[in-house]
């Protein structure tokens, strides 16, 4: 019972703030809504029993990515833009796409309507650590390379043209 209430409220927050992200005129508001949505998703993770994922989501997404996005929005945003329409004229087509995709998705979702959790969640941190450094060592290292590349890219692209 409690679980259902928590679930529904969290999902409501998540979906609602997602709508806020994509519909709001104000870019800053959008980014804030994004942070909220991400946090709600973290709550869903916790509900699922993925404790480490819950923590990682908060730390990386909410306090990292969402904050970053906010920074950039404020950096690049102009006060004059705040009242401009942010949704372009192709939104009926996009709606159509979503509708079509929704049909397919709902069908798949319907397949799992009877699936319930068999076991309760358990702390996964230890297991994740084992997996990362054991069987999935290579992807783990690759991911570090990816992050390195992203760092390089970020530094490179945002470098001021000092050389000229």
């Amino acid at each position, binding site marked *: 019972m409690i679980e259902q209430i928590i679930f529904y409220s969290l999902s409501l927050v998540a979906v609602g703030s997602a709508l806020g992200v994509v519909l709001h005129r104000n870019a800053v508001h959008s980014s804030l809504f994004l942070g909220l949505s*991400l946090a709600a998703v973290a709550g869903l993770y916790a509900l699922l029993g993925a404790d480490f994922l819950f923590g990682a989501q908060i730390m990386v*997404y909410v306090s990292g990515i969402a904050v970053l996005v906010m920074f950039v929005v404020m950096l690049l945003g102009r006060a004059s833009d705040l009242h401009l329409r942010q949704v372009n004229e192709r939104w009926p087509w996009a709606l159509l796409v979503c509708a079509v*995709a929704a049909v397919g998705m709902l069908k798949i979702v319907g397949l*799992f309507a009877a699936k319930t959790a068999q076991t309760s969640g358990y702390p996964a941190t230890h297991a994740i650590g084992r997996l990362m450094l054991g069987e999935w060592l290579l992807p783990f290292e690759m991911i570090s390379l990816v992050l390195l590349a992203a760092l390089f890219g970020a530094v490179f*692209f945002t470098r001021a043209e000092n050389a000229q």
Partner: protein
Amino acid sequence: MTLAHYMGVAAALFLIGIFGALTRRNIIGILMSIELMFNAANINLAAFNRFLHPVGVTGQTLALFVITVAAAEIVVGLALLLAIYRGTNTVYAEDYNLLKG
């Protein structure tokens, strides 16, 4: 809660993300919508791990990877955006028509 619930939530987030990616004028808006899509996928992964493969943490680990990649991607994307902004002084997608021809 059945798996379908979680999948439904993920689906809704995903669709909203698609809508946003296709309709937002602001580049940052597009990037944010992409983040939403990533999260939807992550929810699905975690849910599958819990409901379908309770033994092991494969789904969660993969979701972790996804988070990492998403972080890297948005960093690069924002960096690119900054670079383009320096050149064109605008953040709206319809102004980025250099592919025209």
